[in-house]
């Protein structure tokens, strides 16, 4: 059991490790590693204690608030919040982090900047944990930005590579666009409610009074303050969670080391957006029952989520880089989560977030194992035939794949995706998101089958794959633990036993058995089967001969495939629109700078120059003569007096005694009494 006022310990441990690691000499390689591992394990244990505390009273929002500083008469208050959502997420983040840390010790064993890597990882985890236990939107934003900074450092960890440096910048700038919305939303919220605390014994922004006031505040055009704030906050989540249209940074972020990818895409950074939306769900939902609102905040979330889910799955189909396939898959799955939040089932979103964290971490670490074994070859076309050489990795990768595509009944992904789709099906506004989700299911099964077949089946098509060996123990250990979690994590939220949902909402959710969603389950099973069949027919049935052979899909649908390979020209579109706009603006600014402002500046300069000339004349001819003479006098006098400083002790003493003698004579004979 951990009291809310001690929650700060959870992020403080990794933060301390990061601070010490940063201060440690560059030659000390082991110290940051040991510190980071110790700190994250300590945080994990603390998180478990916190979870125990939270589950003891699921509905109670246990908080510990304090005043940071006073701005005038307004207190800026921060605090810690202990509820099942935050505690579960902490356990998840810490657990995955522990495994990723262990994996990294083997994966980056020979890297000269191992210590720096673990320092950054610790900072990253610390920021993420701080974000989870924060009871203040302001504190959350601080940690949010720290997460961004740490991700920038980690994606650009191999900064010698231009691609990595560019990807780091891209991730940072793209997410910053969303963060701008977040910041505006925060300011607006603070302005409207005078508080940034989530829960404050009735006075917090997520509690009744504030929500009613926000929903009642109307703006021109029928908007309410709640909608505006919700949409702005969602903009931050869009950036962080790689939602359309800001998803472009996420696949590029694969330039970072694979453990970083696992951490970013599985548990921490991308989860932050979903977590934010889930955390402020009451605010997002505040405008729900109101008529006359043009767009409800949650509707926007659902639409964006469904588009992202479909788009990510589509783009994943044509990728050849293992990690990029997984990255687009992450984009797609994040879309599912947003979709779930948008249709009001935020607990389903969190459920999917948890299961996804497990199996996506597994898949990324598995791909890392493959890449490590294949001498940093990550193009699936040049791999193949690894099933026999890396049996353990293959089996765990298969388990992860099963969880991702949602093989029925056993695998976790099935249950969580079923919960999401079930909620989407019941959404009264539109059926389009539901249909997009179903399409995504097919595509997911298809591209994962393609990936597994190309990577593991057939025969080796490159030197790296031909000489691959099973990875070291530290890697396979992490894989084994995650594989177990990938399978088992789904059992906590089945329709027959919705434990997770009832803990999250704080109210018992009735077990409705399998009957209600049975049709949907059968439907998705069929769709999954279709996807596997199509993938297997195309790729596993007749594996490609060598790495130059064209993709089977490209032979059948060349136009579609080319469009997908080009990622639907979204990056090019940005370059052509936003980029050109910016370039034009820059050119305009340069022109203005050179001819208009430049002229003004030159004129001002000329005026100043002339004034200066006049001043100089007055100074040199008038004032300086006097000063020069005074300075000369001063210097001469100083020289004369410095001659008294002979360095001879007796001279000084003599002076002292003469002074004393004069004093004594005055006192004795001079009549001064």
């Amino acid at each position, binding site marked *: 059991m951990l009291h809310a006022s001690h929650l700060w310990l959870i992020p403080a441990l990794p933060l301390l490790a990061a601070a010490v690691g940063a201060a440690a000499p560059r030659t000390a390689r082991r110290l940051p590693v040991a510190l980071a591992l110790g700190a994250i394990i300590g945080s994990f244990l603390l998180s478990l204690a916190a979870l125990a505390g939270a589950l003891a009273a699921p509905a109670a929002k246990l908080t510990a608030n304090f005043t940071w500083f006073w701005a005038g008469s307004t207190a800026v208050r921060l605090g810690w919040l202990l509820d099942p959502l935050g505690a579960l997420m902490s356990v998840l983040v810490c657990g995955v982090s522990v495994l990723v840390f262990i994996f990294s010790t083997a994966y980056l064993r020979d890297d000269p900047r191992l210590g720096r890597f673990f320092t950054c990882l610790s900072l990253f985890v610390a920021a993420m944990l701080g974000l989870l236990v924060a009871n203040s939107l302001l504190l959350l934003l601080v940690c949010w930005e720290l997460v961004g900074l740490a991700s920038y450092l980690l994606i650009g960890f191999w900064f010698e590579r231009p691609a990595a440096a560019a990807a780091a910048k891209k991730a940072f700038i793209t997410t910053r666009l969303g963060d701008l919305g977040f910041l505006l939303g925060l300011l607006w919220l603070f302005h409207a409610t005078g508080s940034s605390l989530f829960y404050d014994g009735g006075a917090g922004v997520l509690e009744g009074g504030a929500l009613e006031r926000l929903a009642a505040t109307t703006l021109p055009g029928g908007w309410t303050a709640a909608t505006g704030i919700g949409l702005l906050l969602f903009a931050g989540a869009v950036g962080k969670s790689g939602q359309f249209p800001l998803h472009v940074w996420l696949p590029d972020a694969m330039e970072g080391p694979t453990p970083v990818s696992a951490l970013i895409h599985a548990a921490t950074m991308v989860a932050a957006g979903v977590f934010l939306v889930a955390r402020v769900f009451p605010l997002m939902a505040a405008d729900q029952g109101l008529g006359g609102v043009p767009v409800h905040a949650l509707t926007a979330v659902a639409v964006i989520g469904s588009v992202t889910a479909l788009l990510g799955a589509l783009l994943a189909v044509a990728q050849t880089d293992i990690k990029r396939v997984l990255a687009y898959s992450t984009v797609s799955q994040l879309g599912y989560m947003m979709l779930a939040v948008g249709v009001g089932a935020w607990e389903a979103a969190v459920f999917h977030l948890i299961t996804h964290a497990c199996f996506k971490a597994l898949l990324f670490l598995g791909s890392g194992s493959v890449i490590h074994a294949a001498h940093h070859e990550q193009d699936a076309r040049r791999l193949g035939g690894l099933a026999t050489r890396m049996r353990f990795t293959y089996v765990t990768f298969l388990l992860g794949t099963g969880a991702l595509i949602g093989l029925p009944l056993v695998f976790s992904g099935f249950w969580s995706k079923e919960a999401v789709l079930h909620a989407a099906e019941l959404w009264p506004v539109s059926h389009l998101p539901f249909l997009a989700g179903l399409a995504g299911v097919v595509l997911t099964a298809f591209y994962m089958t393609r990936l597994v077949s190309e990577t593991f089946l057939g025969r080796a098509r490159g030197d790296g794959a031909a000489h691959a060996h099973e990875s070291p123990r530290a890697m396979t250990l992490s894989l084994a633990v995650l594989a177990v979690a990938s399978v088992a994590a789904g059992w906590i939220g089945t329709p027959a036993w919705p434990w997770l949902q009832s803990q999250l909402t704080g109210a018992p959710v009735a077990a409705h058995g399998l009957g209600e969603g049975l049709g949907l389950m059968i439907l998705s099973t069929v769709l999954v089967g279709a996807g596997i069949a199509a993938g297997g027919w195309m790729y596993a049935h007749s594996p490609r001969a060598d790495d130059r052979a064209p993709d089977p899909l490209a032979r059948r649908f060349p136009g579609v495939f080319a469009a997908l390979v080009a990622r639907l020209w979204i990056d090019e579109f940005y370059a052509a629109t936003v980029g050109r706009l910016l370039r034009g603006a820059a050119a305009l600014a340069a022109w203005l700078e050179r001819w208009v402002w430049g002229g003004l500046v030159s004129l001002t300069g000329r005026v100043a120059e002339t004034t200066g000339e006049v001043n100089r004349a007055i100074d040199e001819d008038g004032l300086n003569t006097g000063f020069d003479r005074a300075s000369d006098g001063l210097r001469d006098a100083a020289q004369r007096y410095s001659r008294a400083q*002979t*360095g*001879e*002790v*007796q001279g000084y*003493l*003599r002076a002292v*005694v003469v002074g004393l003698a004069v004093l004594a004579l005055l006192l004795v004979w001079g009549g001064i009494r």
Partner: protein
Amino acid sequence: MSPLHLCLALSAALFCTGLVAVLIRGNAILVLLGVELMLNAANLNFLAFWRFGPGGGEAGLVFVLFSIAVAAAEAAVGMALVIAVHRHLRSIRIADANRLKG
């Protein structure tokens, strides 16, 4: 002339002698000995007021003992300094030791 006045007069004269030694002798050793003489003059004052003063002056006697002990320490360190300076400058004229730079 009372004994107390005599003591004070002798003390003043000794102090003067020591001071003159410090001021007009060029040799560091003699300067140090002059300082010792000045200390002695001060000791004499303590003793004089212990003996002829308004009473309760046991502290005066004890203080002289301490003063003598400290003077011995001072002499030892002073002479060691003189030797060190001599080794460095090949001179014990106090006027030659007029630079901070060694």
